[in-house]
């Protein structure tokens, strides 16, 4: 393992998304990863483009958004340092459903999707571990969307 890969493995192991993942899997992921920084207002990916990577954000803030013709892009939610960005890479047809834009300087560990998928196929134990983590995040975000649908802060107040 090169120093660079070892450094990435250390950072991967510290990332909350991978907390508790066995070292052997973390080291395998490190070989598929690189570090990257972006200034604010950088588009990380766009809707309908190939989802060939995903991001473990270490610092920063990213909008997940959807372009609407004739209007400003609609911001659906934010993803912050310590969170994972992107899961379209995991399921066919491997295209982004939404777009992502940095709104603050952002640093992330970027993982190559094809390699991670291959690793999932080769090691069901690793694949199950990873899918469980992605599913956990998906459930949290679904939950948050449901709360927003309920108009959390303004359920029809009693008229007084």
């Amino acid at each position, binding site marked *: 393992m090169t120093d660079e890969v070892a450094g990435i493995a250390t950072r991967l192991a510290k990332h909350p998304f991978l907390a508790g993942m066995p070292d052997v899997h973390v080291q395998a992921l490190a070989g598929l990863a690189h570090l990257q920084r972006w200034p604010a207002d950088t588009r990380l990916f766009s809707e309908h483009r190939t989802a060939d990577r995903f991001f473990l954000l270490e610092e920063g*803030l990213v*909008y997940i958004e959807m372009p609407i013709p004739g209007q*400003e892009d609609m*911001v*659906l*939610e*934010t993803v*912050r340092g*310590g*969170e994972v960005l992107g899961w379209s890479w995991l399921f066919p047809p491997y295209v982004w459903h939404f777009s992502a834009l940095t*709104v*603050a300087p952002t640093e992330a560990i970027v993982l190559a999707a094809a390699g991670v998928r291959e690793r999932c196929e080769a090691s069901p134990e690793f694949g199950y571990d990873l899918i469980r983590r992605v599913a956990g995040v998906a459930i*949290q975000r679904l*939950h*948050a969307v449901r*709360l*927003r649908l*309920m*108009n*959390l*802060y*303004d*359920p029809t*107040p*009693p*008229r*007084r």
Partner: protein
Amino acid sequence: MTAMPGVIESAAAELVGSADSGTDPMLPHRYRVVRRRLETRDTVTQLLEPLDEPIPAFAPGQFAMLYAFGVGEVPISMSGDPSRVELLQHTLRNVGAVTGALCAARPGAVIGVRGPFGTSWDLNSAYGHDLVFIAGGIGLAPLRSALLQALSQRERYRRLVLLLGVRNPDELMFRKDLRSWKGLFDVDVEITVDRGAPGWRGQVGVVTTLLPQAPFDPDNAVAFVCGPEVMLRFTALGLSQRGVPAQRIRLSTERNMKCGVGLCGHCQLGPVLVCRDGPVFSYDRLAPLLHVREL
């Protein structure tokens, strides 16, 4: 019946002023509006000074019954600095006839005030802890008093964290305070909106999404939560998942308070009367009641 609000208001105010309002919790004290600040499109903060004997000093979290003479009375939490006993501050949203009349009251107008009623946030019992204030929408108003008190006694607490969720940036109230608190090195303020707007560069999502990464120690935190009941439930759940014990999660709830002193029963919530036993409850006491559909 056609009401004559001006006549009714002045007659009622005169009647109230002649009574011994210093001893009877059912009699309002007269207060004059000295300043009115528009917080959002439909939310107003009224600053009130007493015309009679002032009501006793309040503790953050308590509420008063505000009386728009000739219209009606509503329970509204104190939103001001508890150390400023000479002035009351209430922030209210126009959602009906009474709150509409109270919101519309201009400087010089006289309104009735009874209170303070109910339980407080009890900041004194949180010495040495991280304080986590979590507000949804106008729920920031009752928490503002507690935050001001905590800031005035900053050395008594460890981290101070405010997590605030609103529907959109236009609904942010106490903007001056928020800017000031955000500028402090020893206070963490995180704001999220359900829906962004042009110029908004902050977080988007419900307030519960801020919980997993909020900078506090669950083993040593006391949480103070105020907002609509659905938000209380899910926020308390999120805090529990972070590891905050139920006894250290305090929720301010609301029911149809009328008398304010536990007599009329309008605000009954199972075995408790919210005006007397609340509005601030610990989660371990409130949780079994929040999940009873009939309550």
